[in-house]
């Protein structure tokens, strides 16, 4: 089916494309994951407003991390969300509209530094202990807590690395897991510059 078969005028086609929509209705644009960095006034309730915006406006929210910045009056949020270009544009504008946001930035996936921390408690026996330590070594994970039955690993890295580590450990039986969600920053100097 082509655009003309759908009876769209040239203007309508342009409009849809400009909005980041595919012109054919049966092939909607696939949502993409975005990492958004927000600097926020460190006020009571400010974080609430940001989180609330996602549910009130029907946007997806995968993770949020918050912490203070070099300026104690300002906190930094890293938000992971996914959506079409049009949805993301709208999220950014609505975030910017909040009074407590000082800056909002959609981080370019090719030019960001991101880290996630994961604590993973695994049951072990004599039989698999060495293998666990090998995997940990490859991922540069550290043992931060140990009992005769369990070992707790700490791993840090880009989300993909954390996922891979968790995937490797899963067959050994995860007793408990805590992930921090991502923190991210734009690279001071992007690759290739």
């Amino acid at each position, binding site marked *: 089916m082509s655009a003309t078969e759908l009876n769209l005028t040239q203007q309508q086609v342009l409009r*849809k494309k400009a909005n980041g929509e595919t012109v054919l209705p049966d092939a909607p644009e696939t949502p993409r994951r975005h990492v958004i960095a927000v600097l926020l006034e460190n006020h009571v309730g400010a974080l609430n407003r940001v989180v609330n915006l996602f549910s009130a406006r029907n946007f997806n929210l995968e993770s949020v991390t918050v912490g203070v910045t070099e300026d104690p009056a300002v906190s930094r949020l890293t938000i992971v969300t996914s959506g079409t270009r049009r949805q993301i544009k*709208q999220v950014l504008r*609505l975030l910017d*509209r909040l009074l407590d946001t*000082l800056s909002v930035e959609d981080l370019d996936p090719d030019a960001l530094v991101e880290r996630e921390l994961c604590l993973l408690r695994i049951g072990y026996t004599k039989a698999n202990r060495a293998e666990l330590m090998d995997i940990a070594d490859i991922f540069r994970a550290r043992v931060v807590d140990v009992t005769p039955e369990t070992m707790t690993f700490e791993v840090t890295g880009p989300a993909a690395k954390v996922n891979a580590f968790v995937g490797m450990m899963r067959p050994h039986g995860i007793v408990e897991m805590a992930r921090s969600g991502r923190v991210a920053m734009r690279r001071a100097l992007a690759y290739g510059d």
Partner: protein
Amino acid sequence: MSGAEIFVRSLEAEGVEVVFGHPGGAVIKIYDEMARLKPRFEHVLVRHEQGGTHAAEGYAKATGKVGTVLVTSGPGATNTVTGIADAFMDSVPIVVFTGQVPTALIGGDAFQETDIIGVTRSITKHSFQVRRAADLAPTIKAAYHIARTGRPGPVVVDLPKDILMEEAVFEYPETVTLRGYRVPEEPLPEKIEQAARMIRQAKRPLLYVGGGTINGNAAELLTALARKARIPVTTTLHGLGAFPENDPLSLGMLGMHGTWYANMAVQHCDLIIAVGARFDDRVTGKLDAWAPHAKVVHLEIDPSCVSKNVYADCAVVGDVRRALERLLPLVEPKDTAAWLAQIDAWKARCPLTYRQDGKLRPQYVIRRLSERAGDNAVVTTDVGQHQMWTAQFFTFVRPRSHITSGGLGTMGFGFPAALGAAMGLRGTGATVVSINGDGGFLMNAQELRVAAKYRLPIKIAVMNNGYLGMVRQWQELFHEERYSHTDLTDTNPDFVKLAEAFGCVGLRATTPEEADAVIEAAWQVHDRPVLMEFVVPKEEMVFPMVPAGAATDDMIVQRFRDE
């Protein structure tokens, strides 16, 4: 001085004229200080906090100033929620002060405690809870600044009881510093030039004007632009009055219940110049089919409204008034004669009409009210069929002459809004007319006596069709005439007696002749509200109409049935 006194002094310093309020335990100290200090502002004791919030909205919309509401904690605060949501949807600047339990008790389910900041989070432009008496004055200053500037909206200020007792030094700040609040003002010059170029190139341009034009005090400039460049104008419900409807360039309202010719113009134009409008679904109908040949220029203060629903080929983000000021000198008179002739042909082919068969038709009543009220009328409406008929048949020629609940569609808005407008317009010679349905009027009729107390000569029309008319219309058209729970005849009061019980004049008309006489009589009353009950047929429907989800040129133009 005490926090409560600082509160009173701050409102004075802010230049507040009227506070719509209702006392209670959490704010009793403020009321005490008001009795003691005899402040320069007037406090209007409303009989329901929802009425108070709508009154503040009516005041704000009629005067262009910020409306003020003061209520107690818990139920007082929750009763304002509908008004706050309404103000949020329609960008009305109001500040709502809510009492709160003492800070030490917050979160402990104390008597009359509600987390009103949490409850209203997604329906406020911003909100504050004051934690120290010393923060009161700066917070109040900031609240009014936020409500008024940029895209206006409601601000909630929560006042824990103990901070009203606490002592602090009073100093009302001159300026506001809010690092995260950027009011977009100056539009980019290159965007203005691009807009001018697009207007120059267009053969069939159309101005699509929303309430942002009135909020931005840009109606005169808009009118000048349309006349200079000879561009026809259609307005949204909230844009009514931004352009004089008695001008031949006016197409009236567009959208679901807009004129057929306005919607035809949308579907055939090659350029839409949207001014302070947000491409609401009641305007566009089926989005993909809307304005299929048009490029879009969008003048708008709120960046989150640009390209939200319809992509803007040229987005002029910033103060609408500034944008028009810059644009006007760059636009030359255009030759739009052929386009205007086409529009005139559409106007002649399908004008707004109604049946004139000797029965009392609501459209007739509205035409007569419009003629009688003349140019200095300020009209408020409630929500339903009468609201659409007012938009269609009342002739609006001035900005701020039409006040209604558009975004939220709040029944019960119309009459208290008239109360607020009339309070704000005292001494200006304006005649406040409030047009209501029999359903919605009863939702806030308790404020009648308040209007009587202040001797406000509001002309109240109640279109009594004995039904929740707009719902009945949908039931008739789309639900096979199953009139489920829309008949009001067995729960309606005697409206004339109701008016009289509240110290107002009550009149009733059942024929066109009686209606003329009732209107004439109402305009002879100058010292109290007059309620005119017009008994109209229940079968009357609002046409033309774009059914939900249809393309805007796919209108049901008219349909008469036998009654």
